[in-house]
């Protein structure tokens, strides 16, 4: 098997040029970067929330959490900067066809993103240095630009992705873009739902990940105020945003049914355009049959248009060549995303009920187990969402305008770079987690309260001397 798989990949590459490995590489790098991007977007807000509570209520625990989280933030932004740079190279190295034809159109949002990322990095530096230099609220305000830049930067990148789903704002003649309206490119038809969907996802991923760390600590018996505060500051905002996210996602699905019907048909297993379309929960679609799914009659029509008689467009509306390759993957990823969102909603409702009735967090161990895995669940849901939107658009890179095959590089050797990327990213991911664990171990031991992190100042001399005392 291990000997066969490169050969299989190679065969696939020969069939589809370099499209398959190029897509695999883009998926790997983007799938990795998007987790760091989520933390880059939302972690500053969570840190600011902790500092706000600390300042407002003179709560030393919350302030200590904010200080420590901001160190983790420095590491994560630095790693995210690296993986982001890789993506900007890959735009040209893997997809020269896309850039040649539409670079002039989708470059503008990327430029805006670059501006906001620069601001985010600079203010992260100011914030981290400011723990010593700025007092109280002045320091809190120095962190606000990080949070805002994160949100605006995310909007810019999502503008590019949503433009690929619903291209507009330009005219072309003979394969040449002749005029561009940057505002229509930025605020395209899909941006209206994709932007809030992704930003809310970023906040959920970050909030649940932070909560998960402290829930795990509580499960191990560290039942102190520090851990409960850390859990609550992450969990509460994420749980509060979950119902809004479900609403936005539902709205997005209906918009996709209109704007990208083939993607919607793949999400919901709609082979033929018809009325009274059933909803499939789970199930694998193979050779015209759905195996192992739960069928709810008329439900898909109801969801798509609030009535069982709603006509839903199926994938038979386009020729077979214009349909996405692996329908079951799209459908199952969609179901996993929605299912996990509802489970996260339940966890939030459980906590809300206990708080309403007894003014406490649930004491039951299952709740804390749920809390501990909520971060991973949110990440999985978000990754599934990206699979739905990206695989669901295939074979197009720019919907109905350019195929992915036409965009991909004509150079060989993508398999080599793909293998290298997998190795390097595995090391990068492992090191990032190791470093974060190292930080938390140091915090627990109480030494090096102020560890040196990227963007931040170096530790005071006595700390360094203590750190080097080992040899």
């Amino acid at each position: 098997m291990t000997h066969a798989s490169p050969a299989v990949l190679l065969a696939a590459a020969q069939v589809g040029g370099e499209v398959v490995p190029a897509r695999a590489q883009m998926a790997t790098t983007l799938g990795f970067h998007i987790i760091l991007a989520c933390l880059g977007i939302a972690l500053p807000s969570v840190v600011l929330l902790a500092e706000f509570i600390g300042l407002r209520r003179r709560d030393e625990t919350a302030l200590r959490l904010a200080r420590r989280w901001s160190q983790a933030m420095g590491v994560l932004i630095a790693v995210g900067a690296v993986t982001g740079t890789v993506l900007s190279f890959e735009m040209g190295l893997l997809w020269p066809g896309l850039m040649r034809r539409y670079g002039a159109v989708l470059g503008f949002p990327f430029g805006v993103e670059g501006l906001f990322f620069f601001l985010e990095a600079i203010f992260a530096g100011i914030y981290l240095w400011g723990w010593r230099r700025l007092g109280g609220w002045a320091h809190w305000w120095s962190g606000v630009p990080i949070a805002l830049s994160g949100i605006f930067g995310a909007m810019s990148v999502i503008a590019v992705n949503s433009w690929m789903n619903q291209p507009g704002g330009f005219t072309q003649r003979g394969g040449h873009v002749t005029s561009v309206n940057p505002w229509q490119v930025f605020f395209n038809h899909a941006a209206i739902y994709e932007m809030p969907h992704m930003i809310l996802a970023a906040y959920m991923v970050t909030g649940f990940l932070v909560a998960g760390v402290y829930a795990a600590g509580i499960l191990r018996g560290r039942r102190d105020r520090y851990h409960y505060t850390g859990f609550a500051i992450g969990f509460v905002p994420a749980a509060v945003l979950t119902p809004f996210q479900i609403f936005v996602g539902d709205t997005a699905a209906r918009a996709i049914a209109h704007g990208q019907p083939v993607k919607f048909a793949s999400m919901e297993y709609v082979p033929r355009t018809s009325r009274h379309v059933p909803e499939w929960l789970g199930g694998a679609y193979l050779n015209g049959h759905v195996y192992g799914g739960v069928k709810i009659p008329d439900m898909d029509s109801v969801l798509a248009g609030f009535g069982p008689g709603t006509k839903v467009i199926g994938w038979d509306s386009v020729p077979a060549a214009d349909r996405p390759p692996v329908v079951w993957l799209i459908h199952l990823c969609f179901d996993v995303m929605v299912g996990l969102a509802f489970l996260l909603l339940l966890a939030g409702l459980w906590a809300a009920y206990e708080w309403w009735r007894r003014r406490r967090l649930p004491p039951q161990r299952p709740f804390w187990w749920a809390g501990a895995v909520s971060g991973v669940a949110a990440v999985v849901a978000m990754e599934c969402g990206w699979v739905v939107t990206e695989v669901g658009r295939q074979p197009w890179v720019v919907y109905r305008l350019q195929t992915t095959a036409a965009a991909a590089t004509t150079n060989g050797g993508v398999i080599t770079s793909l293998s290298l990327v997998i190795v390097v990213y595995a090391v990068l991911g492992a090191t990032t987690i190791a470093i974060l664990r190292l930080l938390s171990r140091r915090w627990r031991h109480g030494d090096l309260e102020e560890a040196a992190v990227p963007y931040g100042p170096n530790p005071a001399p006595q700390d360094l001397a203590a750190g080097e005392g080992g040899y």
Partner: protein
Amino acid sequence: MAADVVGGILLAGITLYAVLGGADFGGGLWDLLAGTTARGRAPRALIDESIPPVWEANHVWLVFDLVIFWTAFPHAFAAVMTTLALPLWLALDGIVLRGAGFAFRKELTRLPAQRAAGATFAFSSLMTPFFMGTVIGAIATGAVPAVASHASLAAWTSPTAVLAGFLFVATCGYLAAVYLTGEAARRGDRRLQSYFTYRAQAAAIVAGALSLATLAELHTSSPVLYARLTGRALPLVIIAGVCGLAVVALLAAGRRGPGWHTLTRVIAALGVAAVVWGWGVAQYPVLLPGTPVTLANAGAPPATLVALIAIFIAAALLVGPSFALLFTMQSRRLLGPGEQGTLSAAVAAGHTGQPPAAHHDRRPSPDQHRGPATRGAVLGTIVIAAVIRRLRHR
């Protein structure tokens, strides 16, 4: 017109990356050449502390250039990215490894891990400028066709391109050494000051020799560019040469005082900027030499170009003051007692069992560094001459 402005912005971004990022990469070069763990501790500690705390401060210029390039000149961008895919991948590898080093090295306190991170950092610092140099060399010699369908090895392994690669590495080392000389002086460390002074001078000689070699090579590989570099871009070429000589002279004078070192740094940066703009002026208005692709005809629609100019203005207005704020905060910290203490603590840690005060008389005198540095420069020049001869006979 708008395309010319965007071309100017692109060149300005390249200049900033060359000057700021170059000094950054050069730090890695000196890290690599600093010798064994014990001997290299002091210079490595200085390099470590002088790395700007905002990684993107320098690398964001690269991302910025990529975005401007693909947005404003998409056809040329696709051609460059396809033809020169291999050196670009390799340069990217260097950036990833360096960036990872930046993200992690502060947390690594154990010596083997530090050493591994340091070696990765130093090696990748050489990779990126070298391959970037070959990319620029390939573009300048007209090795990139207007429409490219496959990568070309010959494009970036021509003598000119390889020379440009070496020139980039030497220039990075030169900028870093000049910068580090000033840093050492600011901390009142005379030993490190002379250490980096001789390295700066040696790197200046090597970079100067490589520049002349590249120019001579262009005479055969790209006669048009050569004619323009010795024609309308000649003033900039002369400025670059004068700046280089002035830096060597200023370093030799070796005055102390902050103004003196700032002046040296500015002149060094100016010299590098003159080289970049000399190349730009010589090539203008052609984007890809040897093809009919110019700034005007490779340009995106006007609205895109205007939007890019607007982003650039917004960036200048927003990023400039933010940066000033960050640097103010850092320099306030640097003026405090902590920073010097960190450095001396790190130096002291290299000589366990000896109290820091006891080192003073054990330090070698500055003149002991003159020998290796000068020898290095002469040896470097000879090696370069040999490489050039080899490449030309190929």
